[in-house]
């Protein structure tokens, strides 16, 4: 009885607070999405039913944003996993001074994403950047990374990978260092050379951890915003993700009704994805 009270008192406020900030707005989005509602022209506000959704599903920019979101998710996951595995492999070695490399290679993880984007903006800024100098010297070309199109896709992925491949590396490293030593030792005594041990023992044992790293990145990449914002500002376009598109329609154009409609769709998709995937964690619950 007393325990029950304690449980209620400790969990309900937390849930309530979360609902207030993160669920309640979703309900309001549904409400807003049925209106023609521009902040700049409040006097024109009127109920228009599902009209926002109708125009949404015929809006090529929306489809582009959705497509971009998917592209970035897939490409970044692949790139970040490959790079992250390399980082983890290097950092799992044991020698004097490995500590400093463990700091170096994982340094970008906690940095504010926007400052990472700004740092990279400096690296690629047309006509004067270090990257320009390198490509000029090596291949005798200069690329305008910020003009949109393929180069912009690439640079957004690189920026994201620069910050988040170390994150995957860090998780895999924790996994590798946390592996019980016995299976690896047993495999070596069983006669397996180091490469066999790696592919037949270590990687299979790491599978759950690899999965967690990828899932967490996946769920974060759905929200991808900062590097695109930084690269697109003052430059090319056409690489917006859903987050950026909502930002643009909602706050640059101040079209709340339409932005709300995109938000509703986005929220539902993200909620379903998160809910499905997050249940996978159940097996890791102690």
């Amino acid at each position: 009885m007393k325990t029950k009270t304690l449980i209620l008192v400790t969990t309900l406020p937390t849930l309530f607070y979360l609902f207030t900030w993160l669920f309640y707005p979703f309900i309001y989005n549904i409400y807003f999405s049925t209106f023609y509602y521009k902040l700049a022209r409040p006097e024109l506000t009127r109920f228009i039913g599902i009209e926002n959704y109708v125009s949404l599903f015929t809006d090529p920019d929306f489809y582009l944003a959705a497509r971009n979101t998917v592209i970035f998710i897939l490409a970044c996951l692949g790139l970040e996993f490959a790079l992250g595995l390399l980082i983890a492999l290097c950092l799992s070695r044991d020698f004097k001074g490995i500590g400093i490399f463990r700091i170096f290679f994982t340094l970008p993880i906690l940095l504010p994403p926007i400052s990472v984007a700004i740092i990279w903006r400096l690296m690629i800024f047309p006509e004067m950047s270090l990257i320009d100098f390198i490509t000029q010297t090596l291949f005798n070309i200069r690329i305008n990374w910020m003009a949109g199109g393929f180069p912009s896709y690439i640079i957004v992925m690189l920026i994201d990978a620069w910050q988040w491949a170390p994150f995957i590396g860090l998780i895999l490293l924790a996994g590798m260092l946390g592996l019980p030593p016995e299976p690896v030792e047993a495999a070596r005594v069983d006669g397996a050379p180091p490469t066999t041990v790696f592919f037949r023992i270590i990687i299979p044992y790491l599978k759950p951890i690899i999965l967690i790293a990828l899932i967490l990145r996946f769920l974060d990449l759905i929200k991808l915003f900062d590097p695109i914002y930084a690269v697109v500002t003052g430059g090319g376009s056409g690489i917006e993700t859903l987050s950026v598109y909502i930002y643009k329609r909602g706050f640059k154009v101040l079209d709340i009704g339409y932005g709300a409609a995109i938000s509703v769709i986005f929220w539902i998709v993200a909620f379903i994805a998160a809910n499905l995937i997050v249940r996978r964690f159940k097996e890791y619950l102690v």
Partner: protein
Amino acid sequence: MKINGWKIATVIAFILLTIWTLIPIYYSFITAFKSRIEITYWPPTLIPKEFTMQYWFIIWFDRPTIAYYRNTVIASLISTLIALAFSMPTAYTCARFNFKNRSDVLFTILTFRFLPPAAVVLPIYVFLRQLALIDTPISLGLIYGAINIPIGVWVLRSYIIEIPPELEESYMIDGYSRLRAFLNITLPLIRPGLVAVSLIILALSWGEFLFASILTTSPAGKTLPVGISEYMGGEWGYEWNKIMAATFYAIIPIIIAFIAIRKHLARGLTFGIVR
């Protein structure tokens, strides 16, 4: 010792990774020491020819950087306090009691972490505007607090689970209440974890951009990430030395925090699952 292919490949990998991670940080850092003219040099210089500290001071005065800093600190601190205040009790009961809906509670909380801010920011903006709460770091702190509660609950729970409940029980049998047992036994024992969670939440709030950029409009209300993002393309044009000085003021505290908690970072960022 023989020199073999693996060794060479390892050394090359280390060199490439070092360049890849450190060059952008290094280059942007030294840019803050370059003079106005030198930032336009071609080829770009890797060591400033003319080493100047002035932009590190100037940015405090020709922009409301002090206000940005203050707002960021306030928002991050409020966020951390809110997140811990809500998540510590939840984490404790979820770790200690095996009640019926426990996993539902935990997974509902976790799901909230993965909802995109962009999908909820519009109504929040509309309401805060109506309540005239736009432009205050306090409202940002309240929102960041909510966003970071899932991290708090899950990570703290993973630390509490590791403390055997016998310790608390034994303390209660010694003659103390459950609250005292928590405060005198469990809390000191999870202190490293608690510090790590706090600093992670602090760092994540510190660098948040989307909410901050939408929910603040006047210079006096903006946070550091929004402030420095506005250096780009704004009235400063491309004064990269100033931009980078400001950026590093935002980054350095985070780097210090990172180094302090790096051993707990993997765990903190995976909700306590990877230990």
